[in-house]
């Protein structure tokens, strides 16, 4: 059976047209931000350089792609149209299977490369930022006391952090992200410990600030426990009473492993920053006022360390994305049919000699997203150094 194809112009136009919700939201968000950039602080300052705008545009592009994935994609990422196995870009699906065009061709299992790339963005954009956020919480909660108190606590925590950092990442994942480990329940146990940190962090944050304001304290603490507990229950025990959040055991495993691998890095940065900021006058002033150590750490030191931490978070999301790709590339953790970019690159690179087109969309997607994050981090660094 001969396949019919659409031309190159039509492919390009078709792809541009499929992304219409993204273009629209990009125009609205970037336009509005540019208009009000003077009032938006650090975020607004990003619009003063080309690098900053480019970084923001790329990050927002993938963010909106992930949000509108089901609207943009032309096919179900798992659907197979047998005749379109390894079809070249622009192949028209036969009427019997519902019609439509495989804009970027079909892969080895006759699935639409374009739709898989679009749906892959969802997986990456959920796990990478969320894991980075948790790693940041763990790193901050442990790094602040290590840097502030020094001595024994510091020696112990630094030794543990170096222990994890001395592990080659790939060996760590080979040992941690396996079905065998999931069976043993180790990821659940690890996640149970790691996911406690954000709750503890926010409880301490509010307690140190508002402990003499009974009108506020109970509200904030209560909210933290309710929301934190809900997220904790749904992520760790997969027991969300509202069925909104859920993680499969495999995803939980990846999540815990990524948090585990990247929190020592955050710890080191926070510890270094704390040791530096500790010597400032405003910390001495707070100590003289008789503030508690945790108040000083969370309300005096942490806000003043935010610049480098934001930059690091940006870079780290990019690094986590690369890490997820590595996991996919080695076939660890994620389901084999998962549309994430790493798995797609692995599948396509096996057949590189005969078919090139399934490999390029996920590689370009991953590269551009990480590039966007790095550009963003670079211009954030530049802007925060200015003042």
């Amino acid at each position, binding site marked *: 059976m001969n396949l019919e194809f659409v031309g190159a112009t039509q492919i390009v136009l078709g792809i541009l047209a499929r992304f219409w919700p993204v273009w629209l939201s990009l125009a609205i968000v970037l336009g509005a931000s540019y208009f009000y950039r003077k009032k938006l602080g650090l975020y607004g300052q990003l619009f003063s350089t080309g*690098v900053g705008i480019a970084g923001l545009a790329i990050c927002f592009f993938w963010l909106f792609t992930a949000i509108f994935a089901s609207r943009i994609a032309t096919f179900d990422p798992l659907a197979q149209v047998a005749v379109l196995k390894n079809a070249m870009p622009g192949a028209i699906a036969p009427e019997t299977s519902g019609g439509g065009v495989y804009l970027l061709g079909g892969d080895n299992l006759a699935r639409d490369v374009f739709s898989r790339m679009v749906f892959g963005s969802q997986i990456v954009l959920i796990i990478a930022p969320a894991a980075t956020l948790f790693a940041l919480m763990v790193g901050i909660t442990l790094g602040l006391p290590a840097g502030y108190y020094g001595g024994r606590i510091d020696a112990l925590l630094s*030794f543990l952090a*170096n*222990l994890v*950092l*001395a*592990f*080659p*990442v*790939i*060996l760590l994942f*080979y*040992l*941690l992200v*396996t*079905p*065998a*480990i999931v*069976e*043993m329940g180790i990821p659940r146990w690890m996640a149970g410990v790691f996911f406690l940190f954000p709750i503890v962090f926010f409880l301490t944050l509010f307690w140190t600030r508002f402990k003499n304001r009974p009108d506020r304290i109970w509200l904030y603490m209560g909210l933290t426990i309710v929301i934190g507990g809900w997220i904790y229950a749904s992520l760790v025990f997969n027991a969300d009473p509202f069925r909104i959040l859920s993680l499969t055991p495999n995803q939980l495993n990846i999540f815990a492993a990524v948090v585990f691998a990247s929190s020592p890095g955050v710890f080191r940065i926070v510890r270094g920053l704390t040791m530096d900021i500790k010597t400032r006058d405003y910390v001495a002033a707070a100590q003289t006022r008789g503030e508690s150590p945790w108040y000083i750490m969370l309300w005096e030191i942490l806000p003043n360390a935010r610049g480098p931490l934001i930059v690091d978070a940006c870079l780290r999301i*990019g690094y986590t994305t*690369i890490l997820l*790709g*590595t996991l996919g*590339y*080695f076939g660890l953790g994620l389901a084999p049919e998962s549309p994430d970019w*790493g798995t797609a*690159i*692995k599948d*396509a*690179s096996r057949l*590189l*000699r005969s078919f*090139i087109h399934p*490999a*390029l969309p996920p*590689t370009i997607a*991953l*590269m551009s997203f*990480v*590039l966007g*994050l*790095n*550009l963003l981090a*670079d211009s954030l660094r530049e802007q925060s150094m200015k003042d």
Partner: protein
Amino acid sequence: MLGFIARRLGLMVLTMFCLTLVVFFLISLEPNLKKLAISQTETRATQEQLDSWLQRNGYRQNFFVRYGQWLGLVKKQPNIDATGKAVPRFQFCDEPAVATYSGVLQGDFGCSTKFRVPVANKLFPALGATGILMFWVMVTMVPISLLIGILAGMREGSRTDRTLSVLSIATTATPEYVSGVIFAVIFASWLGWLNGSAASATMQGISFYNFTLPVLTMAIYGIGYIARMTRASMVEVMTQQYIRTARLKGLSFGTVVVKHALRNALIAPFTVIMLQFPWLLTGVVIVETMFRYQGFGYTLVEAASNNDIDLLLGCSLVSVFVVLFTQLLSDIGYAYLNPRIRVQ
């Protein structure tokens, strides 16, 4: 200084001990042991057969006893066959049939169940092969990245600086498995200039044809990072008073850069380059799997996917050693290069 090195070496041994204990714990988990037993017996072995295999080969002993055996603090026991006679545990490794202390402390890394050779016979040739790869990566990566960094940092904010900075950011955003695919598409599939597989490098020796792509793929990811660090350090040096003095003395810009700035600007990148080694280890695993080159990374993947206990422990020992040793070297070298820093 000597005390500092001694303390660091002590910490290193402690770290290695803790890490191997963790690795040992993870690979001794029941499902992992079962995986090993399945790969070592017939495919259709029953649960009892698997259990008896594990029992017979001593995998059912106490966790700490087995760890001690691996370390060389507890005697390794030979197997007892059906007739009650002592036989070596693994025929293919030439192990003695009597109980002996033979662990890492005695220089015996154990027996690889996957490759059916002693671990040392597999691990060290693989390390050699990876050493060759690393050497060529360093030879390509270091000069290029230093050059980019110095050119960019020479005149901060110039067009050269902007272009080179974006370029180096782009390379840090390209992990090995992405650049490897792209290079293979361009140079192997389209142009046909280079070989997309380095499998022949193991047998027939390396050549430009089969070795360029793996080296290029690994170098690209590191170039951007080192170049950024060099640039930052160069920018800082160029704002120093002594540079201004040299310029006001009437020296040409080129002379100032080469004679005054360069030496001071290269201290920071030295540390970064040393700290690159652990990071290259991950790259080695990806690149060697991708281009089918039988080095350390390939061995690690094989060991991990077959739960080859002794080989995996050997691999983790080697990689932890590399990570910590390069850290130590970079600290010592930094103090040596920069007399203002004194090790306490």
